């Protein structure tokens, strides 16, 4: 990573006020949310707004291609398919650590939680955000050459 991205933090790139889904919502409702907002994953919260997991497009796709889950589709709620606990970072987490975490855990997004209360989702950092930042030159050195990620 370049000097700039090494010193960037999650807060520099994350998307604020994430679209969330209730743990008891149906899978159709979750799919509609993904479609409506053009996103690929959702933090899952319980009735009190506490973060309880993450639901991704891949989870839904896997469910549709699994016969048992597909036949039970109408009875399934988000909480049946979500990954729990959600892998989280805070705004102040260094970007290289966030990138390492996604790479090592084979996931495409991290839920950003508040520094004061780790149960409250305040944003999302996705692989796309990092790729976008690199493309837009956050990782350019002084001569304007784009640096490849070498981490």
């Amino acid at each position, binding site marked *: 990573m370049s000097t700039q991205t090494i010193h960037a933090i999650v807060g520099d790139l994350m998307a604020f006020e994430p679209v969330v889904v209730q743990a008891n919502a149906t899978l159709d409702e979750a799919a509609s949310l993904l479609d409506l907002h053009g996103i690929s994953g959702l933090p899952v919260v319980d009735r009190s707004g506490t973060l309880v997991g993450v639901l991704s497009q891949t989870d839904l796709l896997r469910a549709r291609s699994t016969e048992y889950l597909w036949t039970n589709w109408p009875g399934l709620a988000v909480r049946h398919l979500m990954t729990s*606990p959600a892998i989280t970072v805070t705004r102040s987490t260094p970007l290289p*650590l966030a990138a390492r975490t996604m790479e090592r*855990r084979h996931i495409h997004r991290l839920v950003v939680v508040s520094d004061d209360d780790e149960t409250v989702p305040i944003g999302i950092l996705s692989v796309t955000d990092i790729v976008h930042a690199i493309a837009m030159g956050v990782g350019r050195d002084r001569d304007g050459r784009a640096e490849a990620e070498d981490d």
Partner: protein
Amino acid sequence: MQTVPQPSRYPGLHAIVDGSEAIAHVETRLSEIACVYPITPSTTMAAIFQAAVAEGQSNLWGTPLGFIEPESEHSSASAAEGAALAGSRVTNFTAGQGLVLMKEVLYVIAGKRLPVVFHVGARALTSQSLNIHAGHDDLMAVADTGWGMLLARNAQEAADLTAIARRVAEASETPFFVAQDGFLTTHTLENVRLPEDELLREFVGDPRLHIRNLFDPAEALMTGTVQNQDSYMKGRIGQRAYTERIPGLLAGAMMEWTALTGRAIAPVQPYRCEDAETILVAMGTIADTAISVVDHLRARGRAAGCVAVTSFRPFPAAELAEILGRAWAVAVVERTDEPTAAHNPLTREVRSALYDNAIDGHAVPRVLSVSAGLGSRDVAAGDLVAIFDEITRLHPGPLSHRVVGIRHPLAIERVPVDVRPLGAWSLRGHSIGGFGSVTTNKLVATLAGELFDKVVQAYPRYGSEKKGLPTTYYLTIADEPIRLHAELDTVDFVPVHAVSAFGTGDPLAGLVDGGTLFIQSPLTDPEAIWMSIPAATRAEILARRIRVTALDTAGLARAHAPRQDLEVRMQGVALVGVFLRVSPFAERAGLARNELLEAVRERLARFYGKRGGAVVEANLAVITAAYDGLLDVTGALEATSVPELTGAAR
């Protein structure tokens, strides 16, 4: 924790003991003689050993136990040296300055390859002031004398390491220290599986078969000579032939112990480190608390892990580098502070271990050094959470040293968390030194653990003040192992020795809303008791819906104690009745009053059986009277409609 698939041959004998008793149980079976000049907090170990000597006990091979108390720690180490030279299996119990005073002799014992085992209740050293509490200053001061050094996280490991150290000491002809945190382990009651006699016979074996008698006149030798340029260095470096064998012997003995007992133990003990980005490294009780903190963070999606360094000497550098090498950042938390060194001692070792990875071109984690818990300064779970937060934010570049638990520019601020096992129930008692509260807490812990088949941890907050000043004691009861070794922020029940406790401290601090308070009071009228509580405290009790109970336990003790000198003890016994009434365990166990008291009678018979049935009955009478006579102060006032209590608060 690893689980061993097959049932182990030696699962251990259930007991509720402190770390001192745990190791004394093993040493009185293995050793032949203790050469000791006891010092706080190692004194209890020596006291138990000497009691065994006084009772004429023999070790497992029929040798009557011996006890020598010379005039200082230096002499006690020298006496141990002499006993070991003559082929005895010898032990010693020490701490703090006592250990440092021995230092000269420690080199000699190692140089002569004498396989002794010394027990240390690790203690802070006198610096700007004296302190009798936990610290690793003493251990670090003697870490380079050529001895093995094993550190227990809890009373269980103290017992297990005692046997392991003895086996490896004799196999490698190297002396060993077995260390546990002073007071935090030496004086904390926990559920322990004590090693069976058969296990010790098999695993450690007869001293006659394992220890050389270097004073055998038939095979004369010279020892303790002077060597000059021609020989001294050859002798020193020649010792490496012995020390090189220790890591293999230690790892092998620990694997065998694990297989025999089902209790996993290893020179380095990682927990959830496989995919961890942040890892905390520590020794002693902090490494135990770290386990519950890691579980807490993992449940919140954080890739956290921890490592206990059980063998500080020999230092398992390669194993540790393997575990830490892939992490993002590592925090090394130590109970000592060496500001003139490049880093604190364990941090130096960790960084040195990682250096070999770095020169091979691998990425290495950032390493933050943290001082914590010096002189038993409380190390709360929230301090360790704050350290994990800190290293999660680390950027490349030099790191400054940090501390926790005090206000200082280097300090990291504690995060409030409760990491006790789910459903845990805790009490914090307020009393006066000399009122027998430690004994009472022991009794309550043992009864609760045995009656209700629970995991317990009882910890008195000792001070150097001794008699006549306020003291507090803690007890936690749970269904799962209690890893936290800290003062409790959250408690369910607070007994106080008198209403005056409200003037000398804050007994309501940390008591959960809706929790229970017990006041020892000579008064019998609920309204009078209520009015004896300071007005501000009454207001807080109402606002937080705290249930107030009271009883004249001193009066009960006077009425039932067969002799005046037993009154204090009997007053403590009365608190057992109060505990049984206010805690939820009898109800959860489905025990009605009579069944419960019958079960208590059985336990008391085991406790006091030797002293006769009359003592058992007198104690049971006090417990029964306290159980039946407990006054529900807030309940009684509600029923009689005292204006204060019928308002919004209820």
